[in-house]
């Protein structure tokens, strides 16, 4: 085990060369931890052409950005990113490392922890530092969100994976300055043990689920694939995207990438309209960040009403046509 250093390293992610919104939230979490640790806040970026993202990290308040910039990291292959991050860790030995709970972060963080022989706190809603022990603690959902657990790291470095919505990003300040440090790491293609043969992407005729301002979503209560055509039509009228519960996906009524929830997409719309969805905690894990949830369900005791702002206890077959007609006439 490497000796514990000081301070917080936020592992940043880039989208089209820019710092991802999830990273901005992570940096806010890092700021709070840094104060408790009286250390410094740094960002680590691995990828290619990182100039813009590095500048954005500084504007978001980190004191220093470490970068591993290599053309081999262009498409962020996980095996090579892991090598790059392990090298970055050796060069900087932070006390705490934060990752976002993105597909990338969720794969990289455990593998880095495995390489360093430490544990990590997964899927955290909030993180903190115990004053005397300097241990990293976190609150996280378990059992699909039915319970919360308070957990603590018992080895250094201490690593946590945070839900991206957990922290409000700090406003960028273009006057902030800092240092960009290139960390040399030897990378070669042979370190990548997984080869991508082909990438297949779904066509998005409308708005994407993750960016939609309104989501119309359906579950097992819809009874078949046809009602989802109505939800698509409604979505068309509202400029919305269509989501679904896992029950609807597993039944084969809708494609898998429509699934909202713990093992599906996380959505954060202004409005989430749920038709015939019971509101299992694993589903709510993907939509509880919505500003307003509206549930239409025949069962007044359905758990979704515990998180909904508005509820209609009725058969969707009566509600939906009237609702669509009213929307048409708005």
């Amino acid at each position, binding site marked *: 085990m490497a000796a514990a250093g000081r301070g917080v390293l936020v592992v940043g992610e880039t989208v089209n060369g820019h710092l991802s919104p999830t990273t901005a939230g992570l940096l806010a979490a890092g700021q709070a931890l840094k104060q408790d640790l009286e250390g410094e806040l740094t960002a680590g970026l691995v990828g290619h052409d990182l100039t813009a993202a590095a500048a954005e990290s500084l504007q978001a308040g980190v004191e220093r950005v470490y970068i591993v910039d290599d053309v081999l990291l262009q498409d962020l292959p996980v095996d090579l990113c892991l090598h790059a991050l392990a090298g970055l860790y050796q060069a900087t030995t932070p006390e705490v490392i934060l990752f976002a709970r993105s*597909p990338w972060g*969720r*794969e990289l963080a455990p*593998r880095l*922890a*495995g*390489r360093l022989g430490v*544990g*990590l706190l*997964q*899927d955290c809603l909030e993180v903190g530092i115990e004053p005397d022990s300097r241990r990293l603690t976190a609150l996280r*959902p378990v*059992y*699909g*969100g039915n*319970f*919360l*657990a*308070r957990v*603590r*790291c*018992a*080895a250094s470095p201490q690593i946590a994976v945070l839900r991206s919505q957990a922290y409000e990003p700090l406003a960028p300040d273009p006057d902030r300055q800092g240092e960009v440090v290139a960390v040399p790491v030897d990378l070669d293609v042979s370190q990548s*043990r*997984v*080869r*991508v*043969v*082909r*990438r*297949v*992407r*779904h066509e998005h005729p409308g708005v994407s689920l993750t960016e939609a301002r*309104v989501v119309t979503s359906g579950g097992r209560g819809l009874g078949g694939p046809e009602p989802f055509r109505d939800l698509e039509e409604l979505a068309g009228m509202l400029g919305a995207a269509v989501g679904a519960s*896992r029950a609807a*996906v*597993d039944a084969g009524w809708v494609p898998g*990438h429509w699934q909202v929830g713990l*093992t599906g*997409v996380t959505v954060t719309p*202004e409005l989430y309209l749920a038709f015939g969805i019971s509101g299992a905690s694993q589903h709510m894990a993907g939509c509880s960040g919505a500003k*307003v949830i*509206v549930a239409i369900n025949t069962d*007044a005791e359905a*758990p979704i009403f*515990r998180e*909904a*702002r*508005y*509820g*209609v206890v*009725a058969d*969707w077959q*009566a*509600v939906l046509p*009237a*609702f669509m007609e*009213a*929307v048409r006439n*708005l």
Partner: protein
Amino acid sequence: MALHVVVTAKQVIDPDMPLSAMRIADDARQVVTPATLPPVVNGFDEVAVEAALRLKDSHGAKVTVLSVGGQFNLDIIKKPLAMGADALVLCQDAAFANLPDSFVTTQLLAAAVRKIGAFDLLLCGRQASDWDNAQVPLLLAERLDVPVIPLAQKVDVEQDRVVVEQLVPDGYDVVEATLPALVTVSNELGAPRYPNMRNLMAAKRKRPVIWTLGDLDLDADVLSSRVEVLELLLPQRTRECEFIAAEDGAAAGEKLAAMLHEAGLI
């Protein structure tokens, strides 16, 4: 030689159990359920077993299922055998009950995999439905130093390679790695098969191999956890739901549209 596929499987509290039946234990460190409500094999692990059995159907393969736990309900944990798996290895020891963290679980699984011997493919469910960590498979791949491909919706073997359709947010990638390798499997692969009569009977006769802590070749500090559970809590739900009062569903639908419009939401 035929393929050897090892599948990891965890016995967990049934996630479909009513919430009212689940309770935080007095020590505040674990969730307990009444003894009358049986556990299940983690759903994603059953899908991993299904993936292995499809390889057995198409290529011929030996399928070994491996589980670590404090105590097993044999009727439950033998389900993969009833589905068609060939062998079941249980690492069972009081010391393995409620394993505190993925790191420890991984060390035990890695030791057991080494003891099982040569394998071509390790298949794991994408995550366990209790702690939803999605960590053990990744740690295990690091520990065994094999390539890892998470989140498969399709798994095939061609010569010395595993070829996987790997789920990514907007679709999937077709990726491959040289065997031996580890792949984690998601429910998009398809539903696990029901046990048929022949396999059920065969499973009844099969005895699991049982290893205790002493049987595994382990370093002394392996059971020292890297993550501690301080306490479990019940989440607070604060939203107050306003129910739309109307004479029937259609009227409610109309009213809802007007309200949401008023609130600037649509």
